[in-house]
């Protein structure tokens, strides 16, 4: 299980390639890998967004992410979880979050990956402040996780 906060941009594909290459406990076993990558969009609520500052609560944010991953591991038969999240100054297209869940079979990998994302969205202490052409604004609500 690897849970990290990153102050600067990370490359989700390099992280996954490196993790798979070095994770001996996945060798021959990790048949199913579900991942989610959230990146910064350059539009929100009809406005062009130039950049974003992602605030967090050092200490609590890490612990809450660990609790969420632990809950997933208690509920599904998982082989591994990688969970990376940015904070600080972001540009459009920067990855915000990477969730990767390995299991022997796809149902557990899919279910746990989505559970982690929904729990993170509702519980992990992060706050987005968008930089627009005419100033800054706090994002006040997250997009719902179920299709409308």
């Amino acid at each position, binding site marked *: 299980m690897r849970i990290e906060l990153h102050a600067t941009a990370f490359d989700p594909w390099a992280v996954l390639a490196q993790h798979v290459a070095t994770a001996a406990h996945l060798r021959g076993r990790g048949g199913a890998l579900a991942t989610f990558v*959230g990146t910064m969009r350059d539009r929100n609520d009809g406005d062009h967004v130039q950049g974003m500052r*992602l*605030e*967090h*609560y050092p*200490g*609590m944010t890490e*612990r*809450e992410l660990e609790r969420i991953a632990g809950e997933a591991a208690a509920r599904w038969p998982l082989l591994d979880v990688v969970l990376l*999240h940015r904070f600080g100054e972001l540009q459009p297209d920067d990855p*915000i*979050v990477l969730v990767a869940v390995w299991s022997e079979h796809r149902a557990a990998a899919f279910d746990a990956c989505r559970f982690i*994302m929904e729990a*993170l*969205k*509702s*519980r*992990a*202490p*992060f*706050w*987005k*402040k968008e930089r627009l052409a005419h100033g800054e604004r*706090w*994002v*006040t*609500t*997250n997009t719902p996780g179920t299709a409308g």
Partner: protein
Amino acid sequence: MSIRIRYFASLRDRLERDADQLEVDEPLAVGEVWQRLNPDLPLPPQTLAALNHEYAGLDAPVRDGDELAFFPPVTGG
């Protein structure tokens, strides 16, 4: 009893400070700490509280040395 209180994001902007320190003698609950520190501002709806890095209800008891945090709904991910 000494309590450290932290505010985050839009709530910090609104209060124009990111932390308080409270020294009290009697036991207090989370919601009472807010009232004591912000007597003119009822706790904004949807505000979340965390005690020692874990979510807590407004009636949770606060203990000496605790770190209490108030913040708006989270928007990560």
